[in-house]
């Protein structure tokens, strides 16, 4: 990795409040291009809020967020540029139920990137093959299992050919046997060198693909280290407590 390349995401002293609740406190995080970052932490620790600030599904109130060299402000044009380059996968899939799987995948490329329809469909089929559900292309999301829906959601985000992928607890709404198929898809994606920020409790996934694990608690980043260091050698009490709870749960 050449250090000259600009970082993919920079969060600099980001603060956010919901009413009087301080949900992000001086969050600073730099994600390099091709880096894979896993964000973990107890629920309500602000990890989802942070990741949603990166493509401005939530707006921050203080600090700077720079994505792919463009700063997030109220400027709508900058926002459009960023959203085109940042793909997002949600906990609840959020597929469009009135469109077929293929239409879900081609909608944004055709309307936002102005890709010719035939080309967009070809590429969509390509990604659907990669997530191993090309045979479902003409079904509606409601006819698919949760794991299949989440893989479609990943393919849909990839069809925009983003530079960065955000995952907001992508396996939390799934049954155990489906978690595996989604994680496998994500591991394959990680191996292609995609820049990824992933909020998840799947520590196995973190160990396997993450370059760095970030631990958040009560709106701040408490620790940030390589997965090995994090799990074997936690420095703070909060992380130790969190890890013991997570591991007991498994």
């Amino acid at each position: 990795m050449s250090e000259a390349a600009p970082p993919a995401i920079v969060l600099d002293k980001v603060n956010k409040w919901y009413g009087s609740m301080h949900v992000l406190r001086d969050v600073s995080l730099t994600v390099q291009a091709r880096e894979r970052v896993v964000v973990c932490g107890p629920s309500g620790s602000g990890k989802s809020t942070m990741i949603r600030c990166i493509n401005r599904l939530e707006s921050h109130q203080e600090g700077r967020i720079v994505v792919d060299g463009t700063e997030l402000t109220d400027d709508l044009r900058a926002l459009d540029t960023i959203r085109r380059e940042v793909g997002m996968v949600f906990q609840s899939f959020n597929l469009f139920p009135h469109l077929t799987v293929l239409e879900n995948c081609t909608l944004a490329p055709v309307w936002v990137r102005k890709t010719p329809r035939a080309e967009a469909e070809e590429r969509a089929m390509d990604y659907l093959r990669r997530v191993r559900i090309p045979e479902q292309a003409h079904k509606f999301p409601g006819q698919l299992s949760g794991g299949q829906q989440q893989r479609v959601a990943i393919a849909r985000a990839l069809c925009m050919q983003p530079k960065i992928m955000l995952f907001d607890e992508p396996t939390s709404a799934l049954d155990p046997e489906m978690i595996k198929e989604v994680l496998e898809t994500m591991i394959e994606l990680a191996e292609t060198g995609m820049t990824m920020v992933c909020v998840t409790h799947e520590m196995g996934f973190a160990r396997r693909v993450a370059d760095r694990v970030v631990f958040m608690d009560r709106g701040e980043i408490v620790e940030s280290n390589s997965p090995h260091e994090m799990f074997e050698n936690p420095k703070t009490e909060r992380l130790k407590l969190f890890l013991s709870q997570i591991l007991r749960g498994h």
Partner: protein
Amino acid sequence: MRQSAVIRERPPAGSVGPVAWLRTHLFGSWWSTAVTLLLGYLLLRWGLGFVDWAVVNAIWSVPAGENGQPDATICRTAEPAGACWAVIGDKARFILFGRFPYESQWRPALCVAIFLALFGISASRRCWRRELLLIWTVALSAIGVLMWGGVLGLEFVPEDMWGGLPITLILATFGLAFAFPLSVLVALGRRATDLPAVKILCVLYVELIRGVPLVSLLFMASVMFPLFMPVGMNPDKLLRAQVAFILFAGAYLAEVVRGGLQALPKGQYEAADALGLSYWQKTGLIILPQALRLVIPPLVNTFIGFFKDTSLVLIIGILDLLTAGKVAMADPVWQGVGTEIYLFLGAIYFAFCFAMSKYSRRLERSFGRARNR
């Protein structure tokens, strides 16, 4: 017991079929049997009574009187009393087309046919494409030409000569065709939290219009509105009623549409945002298609309500279908025969409303199949 898990191809005898259905639904207990028998008796009695009146004892034609007018005396004196359907034969053209010049009544008749064809074409989902807009424009212009005339060798007929079914269809079709898009915009405007001025305007519009009866709006349009217009500028009464009607229907429909927008999960908006869709792309491709499907039943409910509300133009002296019927009833020749005309009008209104309701069910089903959730 080795065979306990055999697959049986049918449920036990006596639990399916018409006899079983009757037994469970109509004769389940002695109480339900009693109610069934009582209701059956009443239905049969009233049904037979109606058939007697409407068919058996009905009078289908009356002789012509000395002055060339039909002589309806037998309708009033017949014993046992029967329906006097002769009045429909005599008055149907007046009820349907009002005071439109008699020899030109093929023109409003053709308009009604065009309307029906237009509804038929628009009902098919296969025809939902851009060309449909063109078809509507052409059809509505053709209706304008046919009603007004004054070109192509057609005699000019001013609006106050129009009447009957075409008026009802014009008010309802133009009314809903304009009110619906308006309502979608207003519903979207009401949710535009980042455009406070637009939002307040939309809230004001909906609340003000919903807060007054349609009758008062129609009065305002017909009596007060001309007072504010510069001298010589006086849009015709039908047009003013039409505008009042569009504004009224728009406010009600806007709330129905807003209900649909409200019902969509936030995730749909977020997913569309995350993909980089613009506001109008998100609205047109993701939000509205889903929101409108959700509100088909209340939407059609409102449509049906407004179709019938067109009859309120009666109070500002526009001769719509119902008004034409009432005028026909006032004819001294047919004194005493009103029920038949009301039934005739009711049948026409019912045909349109029932078609709408049937169509909405079909539409729901065809969307439901695609969604399968």
